[in-house]
């Protein structure tokens, strides 16, 4: 069998595919301690976020800007 340029390209592509696939790591359920850390939560302190949102809405007249269930009157 003659080794052609296309043959080499196919082998390189195959090797690259294998490398890319095996580069994916599965985080097992018991390895999620760091992901569950408080610092990984966007709004870790719900009461503080609620207070800040209320303050911002009152100051800027932007009630509903973060999304509310209402008719769109802007009242709260």
């Amino acid at each position, binding site marked *: 069998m003659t080794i052609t340029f296309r043959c080499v390209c196919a082998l390189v592509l*195959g090797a690259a595919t294998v490398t890319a696939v095996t580069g994916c790591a599965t985080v097992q359920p*018991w390895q999620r301690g760091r992901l569950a850390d408080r610092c990984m939560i966007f709004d870790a302190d719900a009461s503080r976020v609620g207070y800040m949102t209320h303050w911002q809405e009152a100051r800027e007249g932007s009630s509903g800007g973060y999304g509310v269930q209402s008719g769109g009157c802007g009242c709260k």
Partner: protein
Amino acid sequence: MGRRRIVLVSGAVALAIAVAGGRPAAATQAPDVTLQRADGGRIHLSDYKGKVLLVDFWASWCTSCKTAFPALDGLYREYQPRGFEALAVNLDEERRSADAFLAAHPHHLNVLFDPKGASPAAFGVRGMPTSFLIDRAGTIRFTHVGYAGNVDATYRKEIAQLLGEP
């Protein structure tokens, strides 16, 4: 034709490696894992052969695990006089996190440690918490993934069934 075959073989190899990287299937026979006691000593799961055994995998960062822990402790206290054994395998990477939780929650469960996670891998754990009920012959008979809070009756029924078997 030769080139097409090479491409097909390359693809097949890539697919095989991707599949092999998945989670191991849950074995019917409980694996004989080695676990660390609080004092640093080691136990083997095979030490409990001949007993009805609950193995619960938990971690202090897992909210459902923390809910399940006292409930399983209650089940252990209830059935332990009848020969039931329960192992709570902690999977925290940092021991101090587990120790803080355990200090705040008095318990009777046998707490063991596996910070490297070899035992849940051997059991094929797919979620936290996961508990396995193992019969006297060392066979995994029931598996519970997660904890809903309303499954104590199910546990009781399963434990009673296994305790009633020879």
